[in-house]
């Protein structure tokens, strides 16, 4: 049996990779994908804890996370599309109208 800490470390690693992606990528869609990596990383923890505790709460939680992710994706991509109509780019560094 795999110890719980292995799953947690995997989860933390994936989470950090997601964070890294958000910090360094400029393509809005890719940044968004990196956020999805973060959410997935959390799912691992949730289910690993569930397995460890012999409960189902974490799986329900991660079920909800999927629902939320789906909702976020639909809205997020809609925002990107609306944006793209005004200015044909998804490079985040060009969205800098408001600052200081």
């Amino acid at each position, binding site marked *: 049996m795999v110890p719980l800490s292995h799953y947690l470390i995997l989860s933390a690693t994936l989470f950090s990779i997601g964070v890294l992606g958000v*910090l360094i990528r400029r393509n809005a869609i890719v*940044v968004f994908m990196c956020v999805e990596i973060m959410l997935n990383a959390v799912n691992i923890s949730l289910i690993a804890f569930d397995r460890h505790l012999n409960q189902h709460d974490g799986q329900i939680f991660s079920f909800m996370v999927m629902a939320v992710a789906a909702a976020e994706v639909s809205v997020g991509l809609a925002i990107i599309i609306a944006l793209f109509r005004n200015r044909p780019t998804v490079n985040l*560094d060009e969205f*800098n109208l408001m*600052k*200081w």
Partner: protein
Amino acid sequence: MVNLAFLVPLFPLIGSIINGFFGLRIGKDWVGKIACGGPILSFLVVVLLTVSLFFHPEGTPYPELILFNWIPAGSLQIEFGFQIDPLSCVMMMVVTGVGSIIHIFSIGYMYEEYSYYRYFAYLNLFLFSMLLLVMGNNFLVMFIGWEGVGACSYFLIGYYFNKKSACDAATKAFVVNRIGDFGFLIGIFYVFQAFGTIDFSTVMAAAPTTLIYDSTTATLLTMFLFLGATGKSAQIPLYTWLPDAMEGPTPVSALIHAATMVTAGVYMIVRCNALFNLAPLTMTIIALIGGGTALMAATIGCTQWDIKRVLAYSTVSQIGYMFLACGVGAYTAAIFHLVTHAFFKACLFLGSGSVIHGMHHEQDIRKMGGLKDHMPITYLTFLISTIAIAGIFPFSGFFSKDEILYHALMDGNVIYWGMGISGALITAFYMFRLVFLTFHGESRVDPHVHPHESPAVMTMPLIILAGLALGGGLLGIPIIHGWHVLGNWLEPVVAFDWTTALHHSETVLASHGHHESFAELLHSKQVHEHSWWDISWELLLMAFSVCVAGVGIFMAYLFYIKFPDMPGKLTKGQWGFDMVQNKYYVDEIYDETIVKPTVDASYRLWKDADQKGVDGAVNGVAKIIGFMSKIAQNFQSGFVRNYAMFMVIGFVILLIVI
């Protein structure tokens, strides 16, 4: 009778609302009548309240009028109520009485001004706030008034909004005041933490058995309150706003910067005397700051050419005296001086207003001179008030100032007294300098300006105030026992139970393992009470201070009447041969050793310390904050990545912290 107390602030509030909302429609005459009606009616009610207090049975708590339960928060119930006791009655008398007179004066002075109604709306609102400050039965109601007068003074100082200097002065006054308010608010919270309530009567009654003499809590608490007082009352280091605040209309200066708002700090300290008594360190600091301010502002007053600025520094200096009195525990003396100062300083400010009015808005005393023939009433009243402030027998200032000096020596030490008496010397000097330059000597008036006496609506207030400045001393004649009317009147408010307080402190300290004996201190306090008026000392000091004032006046006479070009040469440092030949040899030594250094020093004080140092510090803080704000702004780069980056940095920092 107490139930009528709510009328006192109500009248000005109604006046303010009517003028503020309908002022344009009802016409100037009605605006003036309504604006003056409020304070006058309030004054009548205050008289009634005061009379009713004469019949108050001794030994029972003073009446409070609770209007409603304001903030019922948990264990703390803060009521919106008014406290009617001797102290607040004295203050209410001053505020409504002098306030009414100034309102009447304003009718004449402001008649030509743009948006006349706005002025009176602010003025009435100011009076309303001031009355809340004075009458509040707990710290928080006082704080409403405290902030309210700050806001109203902001609008009044910035009344001439198209003058940039006026706007800057208004903003400065407000911001500097906020620093003081910060201290006051913290003080309030501290009081709440120490006492569990912020009701004046409860806190003051509980103070002797709650606070420990000379403990950290007592010191910190009073220091925060005192910080609040320095802001509002323009003491070192927060005094810089007051001279600048002279940008406002002159009656405003009379009301705010002489009679009411700036004395709020003194009032607050006297109101909380039970707390301050228990904090000897704070008392020392108060006395030093008060004395220091009195001396410093007086020297600066010698170098100013703007008639109102001289008076402004003089105000700062006189309030310094009041703080000095508070610092040595002579609360009655502080209030006494507050009252007489309200009379003569209001008269001086209004007099200067009359001069400015007569001179068509000329404020530079170098362009005046010889005005006494053109405006005799103004001159006479101005002179009376000047004599009063200089401290010549039997004018009001003499009595109040001498009481302070007496206590400074008796309850304090020679240093306090030395500060006070040298301040008195300089005060006499610069005030008469002002009178001589303005009203005496040859006319230096611009030939296009034709000075004229002001109308009766302006001179009548001057005459009343001059009368008060002349006779105000009757409130506190110290020589004859039992004749110190104000002293007897305020006795119940300033009485402090030293025995209980010190015994309690001893017990508590002993229970913590510190065996400290306050027996000696207690003895000195008790002995002190019995020898309250040491007549021989008192007479000696009086004589001395009159002499000192005389010397000051004489020097002013020499400088500005007899040898009008001397000061110029002195300050320029041209030590001419003809001066050596001068007959007044003694005076030259005097000049060389005292006057010249003083004038030089005070000029430098003003230029360096005041304009660069203290002012600079205040502006510097603003600059630093502005600079930091710029840096903070740079973080806001507009890039999503950077924002996310800061979130991660925050995450890492928090992770490291826990």
